[in-house]
């Protein structure tokens, strides 16, 4: 079992300190790697370089603590939660803690990326050690001042107290502390002594958000900045032949119309690559304008001719191809235990079902945008991207510039969901700025985002199980997906280790439609397929769904297989908690329940959905979730993440459809494409399993179980199993809905 993170964390050399010229103590520290011996600490606060350090803490002469928080904020709450961990061990006064988003100028940075719900998990040790070390330095300085033993001093809310009751604030001793040696072997707090961790802390950007201050990439401005709107091929598989910009140039405010594409092709031909580089090789037409409206209008006024360069694909075709993959035998084995063939041959009963998901766009509320200034050797990039380090590397390669000369400024992001892991809009902005030799901000419209996206790929799962003497004896999962397959750890999630004969196989079809990570990649749909299947399997076996899972989980508890990712015990505790809190099996008449449980991103989650029928139609009223994410850093933030994840899972499973015809997306904006809205929102009640285990992430794990819980509740209400998303379309097809 791999529930503990094995880091190369060394307390000896993970941080350095310096006295600031302007007063105060500055601490630079690293998350996973040691500080390089030659790494130099700055003495000027305006010159923080993130080349050698992941993050900095400044303690001012007045005792104010400023944390230059390194991880990008996409709404998952790390900009609040990570500083809370430092402040806890520092014994800082939380009301005197400020948090500033650190810019990026890095070559050795281990992790400045938002994705995979891993920020808190990776940061936990280093953040605590940093806070504790800083506190010890302040205590040591006070001990010298008072000429007493440091061990006799106590700290609380930024104040050091000695045995006689005399007090010094952190600000009083910060000058002296800055000159001391960095102490080693500092002691960390016991969890029972926490005063900040485990208490609700309001989002640190709340005031700016509610008063409409500039905060997001789209709000970013510099003087003389141009706005660019990009016309890309309308269909995947097409390329630009020619265009007519005459009418566009007549639009007031339009400065120029250019094409880009050379830099993309050069990058591809150079043999270099980056997984964040998902770019069409076609030329694109770019309208350069003084303001956003002119850029949008100018683009509408363009006329362009496109040619079909590779096959233009349709959803209908994908459907046939994926089915063919599942029907065939050319799949790759990803995990195999025992002998499924013989177990199926001996089975009393075999259950086999196939599940289908459509492509999905991310639809971050803030459309893709980025600022680039590529006029000289020094390149300035700014905006919302989940992978600033990769963006810096690609732009360096694109323009043959040293990374040291690229400055990436991160803004708050209006949602990420995986879309901003891919830097296509950064690379386009850089190419445009380079072409016009002016600072420029690329602004996408909703239509651009939805029709030229990096989509969650369509996937089909076929699951088959054997039952013998009342036990599940074999489990066979096949995945057929567009462009790629489940990442390496997933075959070792539940029910691996629970069923003696077990096999996971995958295969994919390479499409020219760009695809990528989407909140909880693969598991966002796999969890629904698997837990719908287990509900049906339990029904076939005459068993209760959660009871069947609890029974199976006993088999994995003493496993010696260190590939198994989840914990049988933690999954069991989570299921038991949701059964208790969600009153499983004890509903009033007319309320139908559905159950689901799933482990992903190191967190165990179980959910119960409740629906009622109104005029024969299912209405989701409530979801109860139980979550084991270890120690809760910020309960209000944690609940917010789970609530949002559950509703995101339900919304996309119920309503969101997407399809292609002749390479063109058939949905373009929110008039036709459905996201969950207020009146469709059930109540969500979140309960956490209490333990003292290291915290794990929450940005994603609440989502995967939600679709299955709803599908199973709908089955209990209507007697109809749902094998395809969105459910609304399935219900319409079967005339359950009008």
């Amino acid at each position, binding site marked *: 079992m791999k529930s503990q993170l094995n880091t190369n964390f060394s307390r000896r050399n993970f941080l350095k300190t310096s006295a600031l010229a302007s007063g105060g103590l500055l601490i630079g520290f690293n998350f996973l790697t040691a500080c390089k011996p030659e790494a130099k600490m700055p003495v000027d606060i305006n010159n923080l370089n993130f080349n050698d350090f992941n993050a900095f803490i400044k303690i001012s002469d007045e005792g104010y603590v400023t944390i230059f928080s390194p991880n990008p904020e*996409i*709404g*998952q*709450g790390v900009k609040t939660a990570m500083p809370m961990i430092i402040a806890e061990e520092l014994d800082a006064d939380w009301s005197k803690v400020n948090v500033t988003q650190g810019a990026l100028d890095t070559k050795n940075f281990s992790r400045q990326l938002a994705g995979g719900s891993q920020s808190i998990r990776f940061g936990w040790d280093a953040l605590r050690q940093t806070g504790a070390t800083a506190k010890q330095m302040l205590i040591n300085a006070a001990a010298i001042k008072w000429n007493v033993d440091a061990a006799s001093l106590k700290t609380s809310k930024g104040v050091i107290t000695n045995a006689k009751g005399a007090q010094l604030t952190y600000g009083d001793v910060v000058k002296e502390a800055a000159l001391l040696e960095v102490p080693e072997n500092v002691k960390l707090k016991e969890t029972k002594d926490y005063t900040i961790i485990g208490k*609700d802390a*309001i*989002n640190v*950007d*709340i*005031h700016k*958000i*509610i*008063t*409409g*201050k*500039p*905060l*997001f990439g*789209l*709000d970013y*401005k510099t003087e003389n900045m141009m*706005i660019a709107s990009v016309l890309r091929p309308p269909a995947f598989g097409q390329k630009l032949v020619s265009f007519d910009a005459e009418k566009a140039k007549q639009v*007031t*405010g339009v400065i120029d119309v250019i094409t880009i594409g050379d830099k993309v092709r050069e990058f591809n031909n150079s043999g270099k690559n980056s997984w964040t580089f998902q770019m069409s090789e076609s030329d694109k037409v770019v309208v350069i304008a003084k*303001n*956003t*409206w*002119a850029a*949008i*209008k100018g683009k509408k006024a363009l006329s362009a001719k496109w040619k079909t360069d590779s096959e233009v694909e349709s959803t209908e075709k994908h459907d046939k191809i994926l089915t063919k993959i599942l029907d065939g035998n050319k799949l790759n084995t990803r995990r195999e235990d025992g002998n499924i063939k013989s177990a199926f041959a001996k089975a009393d009963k075999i259950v086999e079902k196939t599940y289908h998901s459509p492509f999905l766009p991310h*639809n*971050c*509320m*803030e*459309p893709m945008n980025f600022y680039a200034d590529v006029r000289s050797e020094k390149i300035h990039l700014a905006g919302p991207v989940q992978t600033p380090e990769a963006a810096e590397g690609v732009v360096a390669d694109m323009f043959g510039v040293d990374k040291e000369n690229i400055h990436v400024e991160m803004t*708050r*992001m*209006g*949602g990420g*969901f995986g879309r901003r892991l891919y830097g296509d809009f950064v690379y386009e902005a850089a190419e445009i700025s380079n072409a016009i030799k002016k600072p420029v901000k690329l602004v996408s*419209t*909703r*239509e651009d985002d939805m029709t030229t996206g990096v989509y969650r790929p369509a996937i089909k799962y076929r699951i088959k199980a054997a039952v013998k003497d009342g036990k599940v004896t074999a489990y066979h999962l096949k995945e057929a997906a567009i462009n790629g397959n489940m990442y390496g750890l997933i075959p070792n999630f539940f029910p691996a280790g629970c069923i003696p004969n077990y096999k996971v196989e995958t295969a994919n079809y390479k499409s020219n439609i760009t695809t990528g990570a989407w909140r909880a990649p693969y598991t966002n749909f796999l969890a629904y397929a698997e837990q719908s299947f287990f509900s049906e399997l339990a029904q076939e076996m005459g068993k209760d769904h959660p009871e069947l899972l609890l029974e199976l989980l006993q088999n994995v508890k003493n496993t010696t297989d260190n590939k198994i990712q989840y914990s049988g015990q933690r999954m069991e505790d989570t299921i038991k908690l949701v059964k208790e809190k969600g009153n499983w099996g004890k509903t009033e008449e007319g309320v139908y329940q559905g159950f689901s449980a799933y482990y992903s991103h190191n967190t165990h989650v179980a959910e119960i959905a409740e629906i009622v029928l109104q005029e024969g139609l299912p209405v989701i009223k409530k979801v109860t979730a139980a979550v084991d994410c270890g120690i809760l850093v910020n309960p209000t*933030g944690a609940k*917010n*993440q789970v*609530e*949002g994840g559950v*509703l*995101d899972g339900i919304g996309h499973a119920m309503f969101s459809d997407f399809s292609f015809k002749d390479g063109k997306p058939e949905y373009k*904006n*929110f*008039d036709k494409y459905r*996201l*969950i*809205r*207020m*009146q469709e*929102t059930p*109540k969500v009640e979140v309960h956490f399993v209490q333990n003292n285990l290291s915290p794990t992430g929450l940005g994603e794990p609440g989502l995967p179980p939600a679709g299955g819980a709803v599908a199973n509740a709908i089955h209990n209400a209507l007697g109809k199993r749902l094998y395809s998303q969105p459910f609304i379309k399935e219900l319409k097809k079967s005339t359950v809905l009008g």
Partner: protein
Amino acid sequence: MPNYKLHINGKQRSVTADEDTPLLWVLRDELNLVGTKFGCGIAQCGACTVHIDGIATRSCQMQVSILEDVKITTIEGLSDDGKHPVQEAWAEIDVPQCGYCQAGQIMTVSAFLSENKNPSSEEIREAMHGNICRCASYNRIEKAVKVAADKLS
């Protein structure tokens, strides 16, 4: 390009813009009031909501040329320094996740509560149905609307 005199957040502002320019882009690009957000451009998401004569309106669909005789309020002008009861409720309940849509949500709620002082859950949900929150902070929005209604009464 024509010049327009607009009444925004209690001040008269003069802007030069094409007559078909949506208020949204006048606010964001010409007047530096970037709290009003661009989400869909077709009045389907509510991120660009402002008040026009006190009525919640999608600024992406309002041409600047027809707005000279009305009073416009944006999130920046809703209160001094975030002191409107709706803004205070938003902070108390810790509503936002990514935060992008919240200015639009707050503007929709503040107009709604001036019409309906004591709304039921159903009325809140109906009033807020037009504002998308991609992070789905809807339950906290409902809670915060109730807190704000209490503060206002």
